[in-house]
């Protein structure tokens, strides 16, 4: 049964995953087309500060009179971009390290094992703060901080998957047919592990965005005046008690929607990718 047919079947049978895919498409569209479609310049302040949602400003304006709707849409590109970049880095490094540890075993396994343990032993958040505080709060540093935090999860999953397949028949066959260890690892193990790692990407995408938001809350997030969901929620949070709920609410909603979509996507992907579920 081809994956596409199976995918269609899973989507049809599971409405939640279908919704997740539509939301994902919406988010990507906002990230790509967003900045050009937005009604206002997201960075332009105006004297209509703290205006509630209205016809001109769908999501109202923030304390400097900037249109919240424009900023939320424009922020999609930055937030998703950062999350994807961080996940891409850690997907590559984590998978390779994990597979190497799982497949080669011995010293490689022990060394990579200790590195992942050290990172795991670190309180995730303080590690990110340390990195950003040490290297300055540029977008690149936030991406690196998020990537490093998630490295252990990937390395662990990749290692177990590679370990299971080490003794699998087809691996044994490939090794017997004279293929080099490296070749076996890349041509046999990696393709099998990749789909499972794909599921992992979507699951940790959510955490990547939340990390950035957390960093912004303590002042180490992205530099102002750039529009980013995390900062907007962090700044808006101060206005909840005074009644301007919309400044934090809509970026929070966008954040929730994105993380929500990635988590549901992860479950959906797992159904499609996971051979056991394909019965």
């Amino acid at each position, binding site marked *: 049964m081809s994956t596409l047919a199976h995918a269609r079947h899973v989507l049809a049978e599971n409405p939640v995953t279908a919704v997740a895919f539509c939301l994902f498409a919406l988010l990507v569209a906002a990230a790509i087309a967003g900045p050009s479609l937005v009604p206002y310049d997201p960075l332009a302040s105006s004297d209509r500060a703290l205006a509630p949602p209205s016809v001109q400003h769908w999501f109202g304006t923030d304390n400097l009179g900037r249109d919240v709707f424009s900023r939320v849409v424009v922020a999609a590109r930055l937030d998703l971009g950062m999350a994807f970049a961080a996940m891409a880095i850690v997907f590559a490094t984590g998978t390779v390290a994990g597979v190497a540890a799982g497949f080669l075993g011995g010293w490689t396994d022990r060394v990579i094992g200790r590195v992942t*343990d050290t990172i795991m032993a670190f309180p995730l958040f*303080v590690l990110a703060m340390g990195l950003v505080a040490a290297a300055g709060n540029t977008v690149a540093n936030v991406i690196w901080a998020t990537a490093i935090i998630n490295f252990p999860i990937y390395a662990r999953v990749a290692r177990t998957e590679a370990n299971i397949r080490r003794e699998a028949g087809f691996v044994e066959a490939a090794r017997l047919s004279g293929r080099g260890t490296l070749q076996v690892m890349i041509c046999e193990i990696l393709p099998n592990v990749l789909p499972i790692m794909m599921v992992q990407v979507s699951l940790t995408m959510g955490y990547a965005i*939340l990390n950035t938001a*957390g960093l912004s*809350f303590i*002042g180490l997030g992205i530099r102002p005046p750039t529009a980013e969901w995390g900062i907007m929620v962090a700044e808006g949070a101060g206005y909840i008690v005074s009644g301007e709920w919309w400044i934090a609410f809509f970026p929070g909603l966008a954040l*929730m929607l994105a993380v929500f979509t990635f988590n549901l996507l992860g479950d959906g992907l797992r159904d499609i990718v996971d051979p056991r579920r394909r019965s």
Partner: protein
Amino acid sequence: MVLGLVAQRLAAALPTLAGVVVVTFLLTRALPGDPAAYFAGPAATREAVEEIRRTLGLDQPLWLQFLDYLGDLARGDLGISITTGQPVLADLAQRLPASAELTLLGLAIAANFGVTMGVVAALRPGSWVDHLCRMIATAGVSLPTFFTGLLFVYVFYYVLGWAPAPLGRLDAFSSPPPHVTGFYLIDSALAGDGETFAAAAAQLALPALTLGIFALAPIARMTRGAMLAVMSSDFIRAARASGLARRTLVLRYALRNALLPVVTTLGMVLSFLLGANVLVEKVFAWPGIGSYAVEALIASDYAPVQGFVLTMGVLYVTLNLLIDLAYQAIDPRVRIEA
């Protein structure tokens, strides 16, 4: 036999702890802030700053400072926190129970709701209940903890007035129970002081709920997955064939087996929560070690950051040990073969 496992687990943990010590030291030294300047005060002249740098011993070469640090560590001296002026060990000892009480209660909430939702969702896969549980769990983890925390304070304290003022572990006018474990709930219960117990519980409610909701998704998802797998296994069908009551089947037979992978997730979730409660502590003015480390980090005050990270390292190792022991208690296969 258990001692064997403990020794083996600790031996494996030594390199990790060593790694943590080295990385922390380097990380704090890489921090941009110059504590000497910070503590010389705003109007200090350049010589005054140098003078303080000398007293703090920051002018020596890096590796010398590292050796001093290791020496102190061996003597259990985690140094003095410049921000609070107290020995870091005293600060941590005083603040750790606050963080532990909050995190463990948060985990208990997440575990109870998470497992229940996981089981309910697994018993009727694909039904509206399944989707609802998944939605709620995922929604919980989709919002940053600080946002949920502030929202709860606004709704339950400011608007409805159900929850007490977010003033930390106890409201301003009640004093902490006599110190036994540092856990206010336990200490006040031991002291039989119902009023402080109620006050402490009320203060714990919102922050623990905020943390709990955040940890709900991984537990619910893992329980659902594990239960689905176990429910379709042969021994469950055999048990149904012998007419066992549904409650026994689901709880004693299926859930007990499904708990195995859930326990490992709990471990990961707890270490994740210990990191995440930094923000919740900031929102609820909770005097935990998370907010302590954050303030020290921003003030580039090395000692507390190093002390905090080391404590978390040790906590992480003990945590894994506890998980293994718990795993054994549930699964005889591991106990007898190990």
